[in-house]
């Protein structure tokens, strides 16, 4: 921590302030706006999209693979369904699964990390070895194994991803916990005689959480990408779910003549992930210049 300029370094207090800091960087601001739009469209998908029935229960084989046009902004797919509708709806699918995966990993990773960091000793050792084991699985293979056992579905893919993802948070939290443990208010609690568990979960964990939140926000993008990859391999979402990765894998057989089929979902992935990553970076720089996946 730099002591020289401490007096000058802003300490984030309010939400407004973080917004202000964020707005100073045009790129991040743009990302923020797009991201909000994405989230909104994900929430209100059914209202926005022109052909809601094309999501699941319709097919117009007669007008399959039409190029983009006034009534089909992104053309139609091999069953004549409106790609625009499906891409927009796909935002919901991707975001939901990404949030699910990250949330689940947090659920597993954070408490473990807090316990490992606070207890130290053999508990710490066991937990950290475990994280090593899970980290050293190539995520894809872990996913494959999971899916092979549980059958392929979007939820199982999400589960699989969380399984390969939680160790990152465990590591991060542990690091935090170790430093927070040294903070005086923890010692104070000890002198007061507060119970160990209460100290871990009421004192230490809440004070570790912020960098993890930052990390999580940065990970969303990556997770969306992974979900797409799994679906691309047929290990994730099942038809006719309009999942972007799945759409690309269907569309690539019609590439390049029917370019629109696999371009638009790809672009959608790119923009979404880009925005989340940009935001993640921005948030990290604002809140906590020190946090990094390690």
């Amino acid at each position, binding site marked *: 921590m730099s002591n020289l300029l401490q007096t000058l370094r802003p300490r984030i207090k309010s939400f407004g302030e973080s917004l202000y800091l964020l707005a100073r960087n045009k790129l991040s601001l743009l990302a923020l706006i797009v991201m909000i739009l994405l989230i909104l469209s994900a929430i209100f998908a059914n209202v926005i999209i022109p052909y809601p029935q094309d999501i699941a*229960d*319709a*097919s117009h*084989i007669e007008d*399959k*693979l039409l190029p983009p046009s006034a009534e089909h902004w992104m053309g139609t797919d*091999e*069953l004549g369904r409106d790609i625009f509708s499906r891409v927009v709806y796909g935002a919901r699918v991707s975001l939901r699964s990404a949030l699910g995966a990250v949330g689940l990993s947090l659920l597993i990773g954070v408490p473990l990390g807090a316990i490992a960091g606070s207890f130290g000793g053999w508990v710490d050792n066991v937990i950290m070895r475990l994280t090593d084991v899970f980290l050293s699985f190539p995520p894809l293979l872990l996913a494959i194994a999971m899916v*092979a056992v549980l*059958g*392929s579905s979007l939820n199982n893919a999400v589960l699989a991803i969380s399984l390969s993802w939680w160790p990152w948070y465990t590591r991060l939290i542990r690091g935090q916990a170790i430093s927070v443990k040294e903070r005086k208010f923890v010692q104070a609690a000890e002198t007061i005689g507060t119970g160990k568990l209460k100290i871990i979960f009421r004192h230490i964990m809440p004070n570790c959480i912020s960098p993890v939140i930052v990390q999580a926000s940065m990970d969303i993008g990556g997770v969306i990408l992974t979900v797409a990859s799994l679906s691309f391999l*047929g290990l994730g979402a*099942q*038809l*006719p779910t309009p999942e972007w990765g799945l759409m690309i894998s*269907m569309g*690539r*057989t*019609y*590439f*390049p*003549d*029917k370019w629109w089929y696999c371009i638009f979902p790809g672009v959608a992935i790119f923009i979404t992930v880009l925005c989340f990553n940009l935001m993640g970076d921005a948030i990290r720089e604002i809140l906590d210049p020190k946090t990094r996946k390690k």
Partner: protein
Amino acid sequence: MKKRITAALVLILTFSLLIGSSVSASAAADKKILYHVHNSMPYVTLDPSIEYSNGIMVLQNVYETLTHYDPEKGEVVPMLASSWSSNEDGTVWVFQIRDDVVFHDGSKLTAQQVVNSFERSMDLGQGGAYIWDAVLAENGGSVEATGEYEVTITCGYPCAMDLVTSSAYAAYVMSDSVIDKDVEFFNQGNDGGSGPYTIAQANGDSVVLQAFPDYRGGWNDAQYSFVYIREVSESSARRQMLETGEAQISCEFSSTDLEALEAQTDKVHAIKAETFNNVIMFINTEIEPGSNADFRRALAYAFPYEATVNEVMNGNAVQSVGTVPAGLWGHSDDIFQYHLDMDKAKEYLEKSGIDTNGLKLTVTYMTGDDTYASALQLYQVNLRQLGIDLELKSMEWDQQWAQAQNTDPADRQDMFLFIWWPDYADPVSWFTSLLHSEDEITYNLSYVHDDEMDALIDEAVELTVTDRAAAEADYIAVQDILTDQAYYLNLYDQVHTYIVSNSVEGVAENPAYSYTIDYYQVTSK
């Protein structure tokens, strides 16, 4: 430092872009290469007794069988065997072997080597080895050399051995020099065949075949001295390779790639090959609602046959009539054919008295085949009109199969999308494997148990050898029951469309040997 490395890289890059093509320039002149890109690995093993997969597209050109199925004639013709005969009940078969056959290692073919080859397959008991069931010692069969060029095969029970010996699986004849070798030996690119080509290289994803100069058929300049078979899974990639003229033969294109290619008549032409592969939809007849015949009929009427054949398969398929594909004996065009008819479907649904509200059916299909996915999604839409919710489950074959074999019928799928083809030109496998009731589930995945059918099938198998016409009649009778009861749905027979460079002619696929091309017949213009 960094600078130097980057400089080096740039250098190599430009350098390579400039002279990269020189390799091809130097060689291609004298030796002609036929480049065949395939959508999946060209082989799994190269062991002629074990391979039970794509490998036959290689082995069929390297090894030979006693007999060979001729699709024009619709019967088996001599290959290594010059002639054969059997006793009237078809339990003893005598094959006369050609005396002018030379293996790639230079040794000459004798009856003993035939015996050794067959016994090798039986001993290993892998891949297609089951075809020798009737010959196995425990079933009272045997293979022996009854002369230098005469092989006598004794069967435990009547069996059309002339058809069996034409099989592309487990029936290849190989030189003694490789009899005791293991899989690894073969996968390293060694072979002991007598066919027109020898294996020059085997790299897992690709194989190089080289003309065998002493092949008894002889060689002319138009034929190719090298054949390069390689996996390129992406349809679009294979298409581009044909467009640029890099490759000469490929098939299994996506509908759009096919359209695009067929349009480019200046570069390539299409060759359609009817196959014995047909796609079937099993229905779990052991539990509600699949156990209800009218309900099954409703399902049958709701399937979008035409759309699938024309739109999804883009004409690379024909709707099945009965279960035996056209071109194979046992097929009849008079068998009843279902067509998409939602009114009839509704009608039968009412008849069945099945309550559809909240009714959910699962269908399992093999991951990776987009045409299945499309067809099923269409089906899904139709069924929804009947108030039935169809859930698509893409699975790896093994899981799919394992689930289908679940001991508790309720834990199995409701429907199962399935592709079947005979290992040799005999319809028997559809009936014995898919329709004959069995005590341990293997391929009867509608779980049919129909005594009438069983009786007919057993009879037909007996008759196959002695009175083929009668056998054919029985099979047709079975198919009538099948379609009436809709135990499973016959969806369509595949048509393989090869895209072939205009510089090449003589490409043809033999339906009895799926995906195999007799490169010996292929010549350049």
